[in-house]
């Protein structure tokens, strides 16, 4: 059975990857400082933040998607404000999808980063400070290299998780081909229409791509293996 994709399916794959890359990148940038803070703060309210950050993990994606739809839609707090400022609301838009994916994948980025930062500890940073390294310098020359496995894990989990996203997207994004239709929804559509061959093609591509991605990452991870973070 030759794998052939309709232009619409190719588009859906493209939207999926664009979504995964963009939301993972933004998440990593935003979560690095947040996870750093969470790993080292002694603030008592920390548990509330931890619970909130983990919430998307336990909530059904449809619940998440539903609230996001209300929030980002024309009558929602965010969407409404945007409309009154002359912009479009965010429901059924690619931007809306990115926001949804970011919230959906948040715990998958925060957890590995927080763990990695906790393992790094603060002593090496104190040492770096006494060696004249400014805070930003310390982050890039000490924290980032020591926590690189954490960053890698976070990126892979977030990327893979977004590839398989369904519930949030169908609620927030609708199913607009070329804009908000992603591969997982396209497969569902094909199955509904009894077009198993197209569903097969897309599904197989996703399996192969995901597997290759993980294979590459675990290979890299082995190579990256850093010596223990003791003294």
């Amino acid at each position, binding site marked *: 059975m030759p794998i052939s994709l309709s232009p619409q399916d190719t588009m859906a794959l493209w939207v999926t990857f664009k979504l995964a890359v963009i939301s993972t990148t933004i998440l990593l940038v935003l979560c690095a400082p947040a996870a750093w803070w969470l790993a080292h703060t002694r603030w008592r309210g920390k548990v509330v933040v931890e619970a909130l950050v983990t919430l998307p993990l336990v909530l059904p994606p449809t619940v998440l998607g539903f609230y996001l739809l209300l929030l980002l839609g024309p009558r929602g707090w965010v969407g409404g404000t945007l409309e009154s400022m002359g912009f479009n609301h965010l429901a059924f838009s690619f931007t809306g999808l990115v926001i949804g994916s970011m919230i959906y994948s948040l715990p998958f980025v925060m957890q590995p980063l927080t763990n990695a930062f906790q393992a790094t500890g603060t*002593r090496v940073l*104190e*040492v770096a*400070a006494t*060696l004249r390294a400014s805070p930003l310098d310390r982050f890039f*020359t000490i924290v980032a290299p020591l926590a690189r496995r954490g960053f890698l894990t976070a990126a892979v989990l977030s990327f893979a998780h977004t590839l398989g996203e369904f519930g949030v997207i169908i609620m927030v994004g609708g199913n607009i081909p070329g804009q908000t239709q992603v591969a997982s929804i396209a497969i569902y559509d094909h199955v509904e229409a009894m077009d198993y061959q197209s569903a097969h093609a897309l599904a197989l591509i996703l399996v192969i791509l995901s597997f290759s991605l993980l294979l590459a990452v675990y290979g890299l991870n082995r190579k990256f293996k850093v010596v223990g973070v*003791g003294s």
Partner: protein
Amino acid sequence: MSIQARFRLERGDFTLDVDLQIPGKGVTALFGRSGSGKTTILRCLAGLEHIEDARLQFNGDLWQDATFFLPVHQRPLGYVFQEASLFPHLNARNNLLYGFKRIPAGERRVKLDDVVTLLGLETLLDRYPDALSGGQRQRVAIGRALLTSPQLLLMDEPMASLDVTSKGEILPYLERLRDELSIPVVYVSHSIEEVARLADHMVLLEAGRALAQGPLQTLLTRTDLPLAHSEQASAVIEGTVAVHHAPDHLTELAFAGGSLLISRQQRAVGTPLRARILARDVSVALTRPDASSVLNALQVRISDISDDPQPGHVILNLDAGGQTLLARISLRSCRQLALEKGQILWAMVKGVAVT
């Protein structure tokens, strides 16, 4: 006085309240038990701890007061932590060069080669921290701090986490540092042997307060302080190598109060040398003891007699040419010899530890 520091802090049941004057050269030991505030003071000096009620001035430059705080990375200091804390992702060479690269080229007075030679790191440069022994790591950590050409070196019990062998390996290097560096060193320790070996100046800490601060020799022998009454009570004599008696495997150390014979030292004639003499190793006699196996007898004058916490004992302060020896003798001997202040007698020294 090069460092003037006032730190006040209340944290739980711990209160720190010190006003310190630390000289601009030589090694100053912050000495006290654990919990006396030594490390906190060192961290405050470095700026690793930012306490509100503090004022700190270094060589006339303000580092901290009520409204100003110079961040750690802008202070020209080197800090050696208790554990070496090398960066695990960098090899020894790159650990050494981390700080070096971050100071302006014009300020790099200490070069990699100097440090490698001084600390014996020739064969270690390409190794990663997990392939180094405890003592080797600490040597790299010391070198790393020195390579920032610091104007002040802070050391927090750099030997505390090391076993006896590694300690023996590090100590000679620390002594070389003391002799070859022209910058002040503040050294935290709870080991009086280490302090007696390395320090010139001392701050005696107890429960967050400075009981006393001053020259090492003075504080060791002040009988109003706990040191002179401890089991390890001792005095330090500073002299120079006068002559080697090769056949007897002895070296003669000369000072204003006479000379001491010590075990053979590999030091050139004329170099300064320190000897530590424990109070319990000194006994006294009214006349010169000619028929005795004790090598060293010094003519001294009693400058003070004080009670010792050990029942039945007294501590004598003995002036030997301006330097002070301590002797712990029995109360009975003191009475029988009718010892009193100002009396001239002979001190017999049974053991000398060279430092």
